[in-house]
């Protein structure tokens, strides 16, 4: 049951794929000149670890689409400290930056990794950083290195140390088994949060990244639960007749927007997690669903077909006033807001296929980002650089990612079964 299903990462950029046709080629602005970085293997000084930290950092940076890496076989030396670096060698290889690092055991199961980012062109050290952790945290150490390098070079905070939550469904002995998983943002270290013979849906992170809310049918009906990641304690939050769905944690973590149909049709409600009081926010005979908070904590976005087709609306929590935001096309649903509070990722139907599109709340411009056909559940990384979504490869559900400018994309195929409903965690430190 707890067998870890490693998800291998395929850089789609490297695939000779026809599935991602013109759109990819057309909009690669900014990424046709990736920064070339060389990552010297981390000196282990006799310490035995199974992870290759340098390779994890390299994979992180390459996956962002903004970097390419000098292959190890081309390196003339593997320096561990800046004092051992011959800049000329690295300049000859074309490297703009070089990462060096060295590990030491400081106490029982406590390891220290000192690393430096060197600017090869300027022949100087950009920064030195020290990170420490246990043997089981080597991937955390690696992702932290990636975060620091990414931030120093791009000026954008790295999101390599974040996590993904997602749901899988596997046919086992003729019956479906539903599982809620949490993994690192690169798909590694998958952990099982919940396993059930009944559907699990709609995972939503608490803003501190310590809990997930989700819908589980384990009682025979849909109900919203919250679950702590570290101690696995669970609490059922709703038990109404009809729909209990689409939980979305407020930015302050004190409230949850959700959908109940106990009044006869789906309406948006707000649950105060301290007082357990429910407040009804919409009042319409149409479908109102998929609420998501705006960063101000005062407004929600939601999907409604009150205009005849599903479209995105904005709802002010205090005044309950609603405003329609999307007009292009006859299906715009499941908005996920980027951290800029301005760019929406949503599901847009165009000629009977469902794509992820970005929608600018200020200009009203809608841009299709994907060319797959059954896309669902877009979720934007906390740094706004990439979004993850669910799509189909053949008849199987897989997770894929695309940058918000559509210039970078990759897929995370699972080894077996159907993967769906990714939810990108907030920053965890």
């Amino acid at each position, binding site marked *: 049951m707890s067998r870890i299903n490693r998800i291998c990462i395929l850089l789609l950029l490297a695939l000779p794929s026809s599935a991602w046709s013109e759109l990819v080629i057309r909009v690669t602005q900014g990424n046709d000149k990736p920064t070339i970085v060389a990552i010297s293997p981390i000196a282990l000084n006799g310490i035995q670890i199974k992870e290759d930290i340098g390779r994890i950092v390299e994979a992180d940076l390459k996956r962002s689409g903004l970097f390419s890496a000098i292959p190890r076989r081309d390196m003339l030396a593997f320096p561990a400290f800046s004092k051992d670096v011959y800049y000329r060698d690295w300049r000859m290889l074309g490297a703009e930056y070089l990462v060096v690092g060295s590990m030491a055991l400081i106490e029982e199961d406590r390891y220290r990794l000192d690393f430096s980012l060197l600017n090869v062109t300027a022949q100087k*050290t950009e920064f030195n950083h020290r990170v420490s952790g246990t043997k089981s945290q080597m991937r955390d150490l690696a992702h932290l290195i990636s975060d620091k390098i990414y931030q120093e070079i791009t000026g954008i905070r790295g999101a390599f140390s974040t996590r993904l939550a997602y749901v899988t469904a596997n046919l086992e002995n003729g019956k479906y088994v539903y599982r809620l998983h*949490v993994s690192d943002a690169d798909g590694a270290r998958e952990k099982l949060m919940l*396993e059930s013979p009944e559907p699990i*849906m709609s995972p939503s992170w608490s803003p501190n990244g310590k809990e997930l809310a989700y819908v589980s049918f384990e009682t025979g009906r849909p109900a919203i639960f919250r679950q702590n990641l570290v101690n696995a304690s669970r609490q059922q939050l709703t038990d109404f007749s009809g729909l209990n769905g689409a939980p979305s944690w407020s930015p302050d973590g004190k409230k949850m927007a959700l959908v109940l149909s106990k009044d006869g049709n789906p309406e948006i409600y707000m649950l105060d997690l301290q007082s357990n009081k429910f407040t009804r926010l919409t009042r319409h005979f149409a479908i109102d669903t*998929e609420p998501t908070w705006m960063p101000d904590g005062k407004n929600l976005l939601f999907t409604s077909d009150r205009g005849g087709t599903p479209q995105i609306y904005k709802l002010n929590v205090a005044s309950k006033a609603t405003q329609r935001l999307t007009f292009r096309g006859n299906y715009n649903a499941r908005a996920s807001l980027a951290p800029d509070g301005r760019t929406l990722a949503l599901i847009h139907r165009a000629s009977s296929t469902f794509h992820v599109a970005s929608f600018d709340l200020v200009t009203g411009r809608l841009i299709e980002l994907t060319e797959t056909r059954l896309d669902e559940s877009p979720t934007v990384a906390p740094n706004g650089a990439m979004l993850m979504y669910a799509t189909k490869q053949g008849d199987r559900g897989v997770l894929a990612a695309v940058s918000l400018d559509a210039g970078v994309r990759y897929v995370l195929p699972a080894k077996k079964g159907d993967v769906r409903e990714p939810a990108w965690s907030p920053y965890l430190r």
Partner: protein
Amino acid sequence: MIKFNRISFVAVSLSMVLAGCSSAPTDQSTDIEDTTVQTGQVDTSAIEDSAMDMASGADTVFYFDYDKALLKPESRAALLEHAAALNSSPRSVRLEGHADERGTREYNMALGERRANAVKEFMVMQGVSAGLIEVISYGEERAASYGSNDGAWSLNRRVELK
């Protein structure tokens, strides 16, 4: 390359001095916290498998058009038969609404409920007590036919009477 946000230089940390390290100067340091994920347990004891026999051999699955929640004329005969049976010997039934996989999951939950409600309304109009009918939507979560094609989708847009 854009470059800002230089990390300010912080004096060599105490731990480094204590460890007697003589490597590169350290600007900043980070300790990784333990955030290991544990597995929760579901309690499925409440679930009853309601494989009750339906009146006669009338159909118990009713299909719908894409994006629609209107009963099809061909569903009427079987529903009238079920309504008559429930009126003569009342018992609780479940109407499980489903959608095909196209579109978003929570919207499809709402669509599945709309379909099940359409069946419920029809049965209530035939005199069945609304209190006997429970509506549950599974959206696109429990496909009857697997595959991403028109044939599978048409079998998945359904309401099951149980």
